[in-house]
Structures are given as structure tokens and as C-alpha cells.
């Protein structure tokens, strides 16, 4: 096999492993990949794109809601619940974890705690977004070089 392809395959697989090892992704991401096939070759990218759109909307709403004079914690909780759900569905483990703490602060009606969590969840979201975009880029490079993405 082409050495360039081999190198790209290695790069992809190492990068992917690191994402799992560092807790950015969990087994659910693997489940998503297994649902992808020749008839649906872009499934993972499509779901992840929906996750990005959805998360950005939720983070905007959360920022607005927590910025109010009188914070509506039920609304905050509802948004965090949604974010927790979608991050869990795509395997974005670290985002999901922060959402759990976030909900606890909501229950306590602790604005400061919520604001801290909001910042944290924004950070984790940005990180996983960048990581996934890099992962997809590596996949594209591999495909362009004539290689194929190994089934995990």
C-alpha cells in the first residue's frame, strides 16, 4: 500500500485514540461510526454538524438567560438538559460531564455556580468542536490520498 496512505491512516488512528484517552469522546462516538456505511457515508459528519448547531443555539440561550436580573432556573435547567442529551448522543463526554454539575447548581439556584459552569461548558464545547473538525480533516485527507477509513 502507498506509504503516504499508511502514514495518513496512522495519523488518523493515533489522533482518534488520543481523543478517547483524553475523554473528549466516549463509546457512543464509536456507535455513530458503526452506523455509517457506503449508503450513508456522511452520517457522522451530519449528526455532529447538527450537534454543533444545536449547542451553539443552547449556549446563546443560556448566556441570555443567566444574564437576566432574575434568573429563570427552570429555563436554564431545560437548556442544560438538552445540551446534556445531545452531547451524550454523540459521545462528547466532557461536555456531558460539565452539564451534570451545571444541573446541580441549577437545582441549588446558585447563579455564580451556573455562570462558572457556563464558562466551563463553553470551553469544553470549543475544544471538542476543534478536535472533531480536525478529525474530519484527517479523514478527508486520507480519502483524498486514496485510502479508506478503517471501521472501528
Amino acid at each position, binding site marked *: 500500500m502507498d506509504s503516504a496512505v499508511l502514514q495518513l491512516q496512522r495519523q488518523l488512528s493515533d489522533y482518534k485514540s488520543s481523543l478517547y484517552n483524553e475523554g473528549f469522546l466516549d463509546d457512543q462516538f464509536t456507535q455513530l461510526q458503526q452506523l455509517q456505511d457506503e449508503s450513508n457515508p456522511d452520517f457522522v459528519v*451530519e*449528526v455532529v454538524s447538527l450537534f454543533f448547531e*444545536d449547542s451553539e443555539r443552547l449556549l446563546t440561550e443560556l448566556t441570555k438567560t443567566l444574564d437576566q436580573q432574575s434568573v429563570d432556573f427552570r429555563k436554564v435547567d431545560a437548556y442544560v438538559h*438538552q445540551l446534556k*442529551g*445531545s452531547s*451524550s*448522543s454523540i459521545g462528547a463526554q466532557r461536555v456531558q460531564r460539565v452539564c451534570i454539575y451545571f444541573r446541580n447548581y441549577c437545582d441549588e439556584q446558585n447563579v455564580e455556580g451556573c455562570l462558572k459552569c457556563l464558562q466551563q461548558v463553553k470551553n469544553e464545547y470549543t475544544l471538542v468542536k476543534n478536535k472533531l473538525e480536525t478529525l474530519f480533516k484527517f479523514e478527508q485527507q486520507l480519502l483524498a490520498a486514496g485510502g479508506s477509513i478503517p471501521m472501528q
Partner: protein
Amino acid sequence: MGLAKESQFHVLAVDDSLVDRKLIERLLKTSSYQVTTVDSGSKALEFLGLNEDEQINSNQPSVSPNNHQEVEVNLIITDYCMPGMTGYDLLKKIKESSSLRNIPVVIMSSENVPSRISRCLEEGADEFFLKPVRKSDVNKLKPHLMKTKDNNHQKQENKEASETIEVQPPQPPQLQPQQQQSNNKKRKAVEVEGLSPDRTMPRYSGLTAV
């Protein structure tokens, strides 16, 4: 509607989350099911042909059988936590409708709350899946779908006669409406009796043809 040929099972998936709708749709399609997704309980009821007027008349025998169901749905899978009508509310409405109550209903939830699970199973849900839903969960749907196909087939052949044989000794046709009511009660009783706290196994309707 094509019952004569080998038609695909049609699943209606209800979830307010865009990501989860995409996911459940893909999961169901890999099992070769035909899928319709909607984002709310009210849209689901609309799709199923159940509206305000139908609800009032839902306990009366239907005059024109295909009036409210243009599309055949073989299973409904719904998220529990949704704004407005929850999955539980939707489940109740389906079970209260004479035209829809035999459609198996599966509930999905991201939260593992035993009382929630029992409540849903008590109300007639056939399965309860924890999210994120996986292929192994979707594989559990087949028996519920097969059961419905058998039911529908039986009804096509011999509408109420088979139900009569199942539950009570044969009675003259004019007693049908009464029997339907007692059938309902019996079905509810069967479900409650069989309930245990960590129940996750599917439950069979008292009207299942064997």
C-alpha cells in the same frame, strides 16, 4: 396499504431533539424499517390521524375503519422528556384511543428513574430504552412489530370473532360492544398484575393472537 405483499414495518419516532431524531432515524433505517420522525407529541397524534374530534368519539366503534389512519404505523417510539406533551402523555392518549391502542409504544429517556419506568410500563409501554439508544435496543423491537402484524392479519380475516375467542367463550355478535369494554378491563388487569420494580421485559397485550 399492501398487506398482501411483504411490506416494511413503519415506525413513528417522536423526539424534540434534532440530534436524537437523526440518530434514531438512522438506527431504525439500518434495521430496514420505514421511518417517520416528528418533533412533538401533538404532531405525532396529528400524523396518526387523531385530533380533538376523534378523541371525543374514540370509545365508540369506528364507522369507517380507515377514516383516521391514512398511513399504517406499526410502532411508536417516543422520548419521555418533551416540552408540552411528554412521552407519557402521548402514551396515554394512544392507549385511550380505540384506533391506536394496539400499536406498540416504546419510551426513551436519558434519565434512569425507576418510578418513571414503572409508570410507563403500567400505562402500556412495551419497552423502555435508556438514551443514548443503541443498535442492541433497536433489535428488541422486532418481536413487538411481529406481534402487531399478526394482530392486523387476524383482524383482516375475522374482525371481532378472534378477539372473542381469545378472552371469553363465543357470544352472539350483538354483544360485541360490551365485550370490547370488558376486554379493555381485562387487559389493564393483566398488565398491572404482571408488574415488578425492575421490569424491563416486554409485556404482551391480553388480546394477542397465539
